[in-house]
């Protein structure tokens, strides 16, 4: 009960930090946002320490994502080399990490031809094709499977056409993996790893440029993950400097006015380390 009370106290504190955070966001008070972001990091670390983990990152690796130790070590050893392997190869402007939208729009029918492309390599998708519906999303791409209805709902946001194609391929890759595993997955990490493996095999079939641009889109996930790995393990680091350095490592120099963008990025403030499984999978698959 004491432990439970402590956990509730921490959650209550996080709630309070967020109230102040949203208020500071409205006022655009960067100094206060940085201070509150630091408090958020410390509180989330306390939450993890209370559950027996070294810090929030440790909890994410072991409890939430269940990343196998060899994969985690390979990621740590190769992430810097990965950053230099892809960044110079992609034509990225300093503060716009979009790559797919810079390519000419693919001349295919959406979603029919995407299904056709997937079917060529993974014919098993045909067996479940009539159980899949594609719906609009207002919060990124994801899928849900309903046991009762034996139905897949794939949610894709209204965005650039090439991005929609890429997102649908990734979600269909999840469906293929989900079917292969008989609706059971070992962990968030294993699901993400397998989906990326299938996805990269498919995007290569479209074109080399498309495949490279897909990697490029994922660089932002690498930036977010690497930045937060540093911040959660060394809470004395300056978040603005650390974010700017990480962005430069994977994508390019960040303009001064964009160096505090992370304070408004929900994938960092609301969903810390949400890209971790994906980032680790990609480095493991591509290096």
């Amino acid at each position, binding site marked *: 009960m004491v432990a439970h009370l402590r956990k509730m106290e921490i*959650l*209550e504190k996080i709630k309070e930090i967020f109230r102040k955070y949203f208020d500071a*966001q409205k006022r655009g008070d960067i100094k206060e946002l940085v201070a509150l972001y630091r408090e958020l990091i410390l509180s989330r670390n306390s939450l993890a320490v209370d559950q027996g983990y070294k810090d929030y990152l440790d909890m994410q690796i072991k409890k*939430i994502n269940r990343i196998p130790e060899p994969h985690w070590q390979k990621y740590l050893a190769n992430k810097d080399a990965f950053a230099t392997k892809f960044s110079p190869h992609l034509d990225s402007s300093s503060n716009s990490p979009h790559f797919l939208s810079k390519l000419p729009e693919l001349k295919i029918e959406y979603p029919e031809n995407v299904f056709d492309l997937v079917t060529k390599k993974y014919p098993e998708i045909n067996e479940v094709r009539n159980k899949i519906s594609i719906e609009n999303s207002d919060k990124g*791409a994801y899928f849900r499977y309903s046991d009762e209805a034996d139905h897949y709902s794939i949610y894709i946001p209204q965005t*650039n056409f090439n991005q929609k194609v890429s997102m649908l391929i990734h979600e269909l890759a999840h469906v293929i993996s989900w079917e292969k595993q008989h609706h*059971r997955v070992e962990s968030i990490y294993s699901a993400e790893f397998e989906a990326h493996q299938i996805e990269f095999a498919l995007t290569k079939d479209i074109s080399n440029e498309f495949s490279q641009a897909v990697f490029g889109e994922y660089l932002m996930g690498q930036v977010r993950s690497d930045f937060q790995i540093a911040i959660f393990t060394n809470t004395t680091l300056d978040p603005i400097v650390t974010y700017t350095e990480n962005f430069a490592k994977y994508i390019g120099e960040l303009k001064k006015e964009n160096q505090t963008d992370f304070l408004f990025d929900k994938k960092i403030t609301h969903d810390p380390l949400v890209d971790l499984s994906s980032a680790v999978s990609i480095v493991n698959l591509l290096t």
Partner: protein
Amino acid sequence: MRHWSSPVTPKFQSVKYIAFQILQDIIHLLPQYIEKRRKFMINPDPPKDEVIYIDLQGRPHDTPQECIEANLGVEEAGGGQYQAGGNCGQDPSNIPDNKG
């Protein structure tokens, strides 16, 4: 240290003592626990700006439903109920280009 008049063996006495201590702790902490839980969970229809529900990973949500689902996602990951989400880095709405 509390005094015991019960004519029982020292071993049993110590077990009884520990049990009594735990019971006392529970009785002492129960009102605090109920109050915190009430404050944390119940918030009937307050203004949207002020409503934040925090899940077990310390992530904020607009509705209790979303918060509960997020917690279930963690509990059930690996148990066959995992709902895959996120096509990381590909959602333009997550790349902030405007502040405030």
